[in-house]
């Protein structure tokens, strides 16, 4: 895989989403791709998480979070419990 690309393997509410993005892609672009691919409910209440840490703000790029190669992420609703 080219070093300027990142492959994401995302656990989502509707199963697994896999995609390869430029390392300069924004987090919001990855969320949008997963939402489109799996026909998830749209909205601004979903966030990507890596190793328990939310990838926010979503305008930041994949590489700015140190993501490289193939990474496993979770797509979850925002929030920290009730």
């Amino acid at each position, binding site marked *: 895989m080219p070093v300027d690309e990142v492959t994401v393997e995302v656990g989502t509410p509707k*199963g697994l989403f896999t995609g390869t993005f430029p390392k300069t892609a924004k987090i919001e672009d990855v969320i949008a791709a997963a939402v489109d691919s799996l026909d998830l*409910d749209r*909205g601004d209440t*979903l966030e990507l998480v890596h190793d328990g840490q939310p990838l926010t703000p979503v305008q930041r790029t994949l590489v700015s979070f140190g993501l490289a190669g193939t990474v496993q992420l979770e797509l979850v609703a925002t929030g920290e419990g009730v």
Partner: protein
Amino acid sequence: MATVTDRVFAEQFGHLREVAEHRGWPLKQIDGPGFELVLPARDGSRFGLKVMCDGYPGTPPAWRWWNPETGACDQPADTPRGSGYFHTSRRICAPWNRLAYSQVDPHGPHGDWQLSTWMTNPKTGRGTTLAAMALRITVELQSSRFQGRSG
């Protein structure tokens, strides 16, 4: 004839299985319908859950901390602490957990929620599928909020 519960469970369990198999999480379907699931925590340990889905999605699943070796449920040593979801009552505190409702479980922390409106409870958010619920628990176990076991 398949019931609504059968159909919804089959579809959503399939999504959960897809994620679990990819991540290497042990997952087994059981009668009820329901399932047993083991999830990894930030400290390298694992937590088991036994989940009963009878009546789903009319009522939310019952998520119970479970020891895969002994089969015991709700034991302090098998229950995580530290997140807002990991209530001191040893119940997962979310509208998508049937055991969070005090009218269902005397240990349930919430008497102010209505079971019949769990899907539209603002605190449910997008936690309306089995995979979404499991992913939320996983994120909490992996986060800096996780503080080990209750006992």
